């Protein structure tokens, strides 16, 4: 079997990299989360102690951790449905037979997805400016008083959600568009012959045919939105009043600002379990509905 030996030459480099720089660290993350790894252990491993689930128990008593969890759930809970609705709406418009200049619109709506997150976050920080921001200027035209978008603890997270939807909706739009294109025309024709209105066609043909795609997009988007980090880092630094500290932002500060690496690993694991649980729940829900 000459082929067998050559095959290993092809896969070994990639597998080695993934094993050493991904699988090993993931396993190590769990072990480190059971220790009090901190700046002293960083200097000398002799200072390392095993603390069992101590880091996890301590997290449960840390108000900022709970707040970060709450903020992240807020971001996911409001951001994902908004984002998916925007994606679906844009995809339906792009798919319409009446649309002109399709390639232009597709590219224009997709453009924010490929931009550099940090760069566009900087732009939006200025758009959100209370005094000179164009957003407040536009709202002023509608007779709405200026909002302190990034300085008011009630508005900072909505502002970040707005920004995230703008940045991300194009991605799922493309996936929905492909899904719409794969629905056979005959189904719509049959519905039209039966006298179904546009809304009726949407509810009884488009949505059911698209539901596997919506499911997939939902799972991927939720997992992605749980990983909120750069937006608050650039736009609010977690503030005001820690209203935009996300779980990852908390992990970053805990690990790489305060060098509590044991505790940071525990945070990372909690995030992983959370994403895993939500994904599993969705898959189970899908089976239950009969997908």
């Amino acid at each position, binding site marked *: 079997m000459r082929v067998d030996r050559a095959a290993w030459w092809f896969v070994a480099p990639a597998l080695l*990299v993934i094993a050493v720089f991904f699988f090993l660290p993931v396993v190590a*993350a769990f072990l480190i989360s059971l220790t009090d790894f901190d700046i002293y252990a960083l200097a000398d491993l002799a200072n390392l102690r095993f603390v069992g689930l101590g880091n996890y128990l301590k997290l449960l008593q840390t108000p900022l951790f709970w707040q970060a969890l709450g903020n992240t759930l807020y971001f996911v809970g409001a951001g994902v449905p908004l984002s998916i609705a925007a994606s679906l709406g844009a995809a339906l418009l792009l798919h319409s037979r009446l649309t*002109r200049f399709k390639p232009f619109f597709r590219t224009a709506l997709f453009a924010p997805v490929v931009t550099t997150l940090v760069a566009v976050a900087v732009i939006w920080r*200025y758009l959100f400016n209370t005094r*000179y921001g*164009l957003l407040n200027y536009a709202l002023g035209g509608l007779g709405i008083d200026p909002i302190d978008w990034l300085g008011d603890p009630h508005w900072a997270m909505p502002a970040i959600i707005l920004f995230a939807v703008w940045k991300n909706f194009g991605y799922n739009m493309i*996936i929905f568009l492909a899904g719409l294109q794969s629905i056979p025309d005959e189904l719509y024709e049959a519905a039209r012959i039966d006298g179904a209105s546009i809304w009726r066609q949407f509810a009884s043909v488009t949505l059911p045919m698209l539901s596997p795609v919506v499911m997939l997009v939902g799972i991927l988007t939720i*997992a992605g939105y749980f990983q909120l980090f750069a937006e608050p880092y650039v736009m609010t630094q977690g503030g005001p009043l820690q209203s935009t500290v996300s779980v990852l932002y908390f992990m970053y500060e805990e690990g790489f600002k305060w060098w509590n690496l044991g505790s940071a690993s525990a945070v990372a694991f909690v995030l992983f379990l959370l994403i895993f649980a939500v994904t599993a729940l969705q898959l189970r829900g899908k089976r239950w509905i009969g997908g």
Partner: protein
Amino acid sequence: MRRRVQAPLVNGLLLAAAALTLFPLLWMVSVSLMSPGEASSYPPPLVPERATLGNYRELFGRAGVGRYLVNSVFLAAAVTAVSLVFNVAAGYAFAKLRFAGRDRIFKLLLGALVIPGQVAMVPLFLLLKEMGLVNSYGGVIVPAMAGIFGIFLVRQYALSIPDELLEAARIDGASEFRIFGAIVVPALKPIIVTLAVFTLLGTWNDFMWPLIVLTDKDLYTLPVALASLSREHVQDNELMMAGSVLTTLPVLLVFLALQRYYMQGLLAGSVKG
């Protein structure tokens, strides 16, 4: 009759949506050409009174952005080049070559896609520190030399290479490496371009890991440098916009040039489930 109402409505809505997505980007370019302080007035000006490249001069002069640009270009190119070789070779082998445990290993890799990369960050940092790679280009390049997503993308595409083609070459006495170079790589060209664009943009735009592993200012990539500059220069609207243009324009141009390949990769990648 109804068509006459609907067509303007559909196109009008799309036009409004496109205005919303493009406006911040166009505004960024416009403000980057304004003189210092000009954008901080009310009502906010849309176009510069007198367009100037002063902000860009300041960026390259005093802020030393040229250095970050070089870092970003080098890292994106290096990661793309190395990871392409590793991922394409592995993706092809998973699709077309037989070896013990192939399917089991592939399943394991697919399963691992649900693990967010951030879980590995703390131990990865410690590992790279042991290897002396923290605060060096290597800290960004080495962990990115291969990726599950890239292997998966290549494998799906490579499945369509006809086995007869490879068998014929083997009967002719070609070595596996020769077959890879002469038959497989040309056949995989479209997916190689797709993966290259994905990796290039992904590495360029990456923020959290370079922020962690590159602590020396001289090694910063553009996004990391921009984030740090924007914390210092909160009031310097125009300068920051020039920095944003410099950071995001290169990737936008690459995307526009290779859009077809990018969209293909996006759709192929989303089927992973």
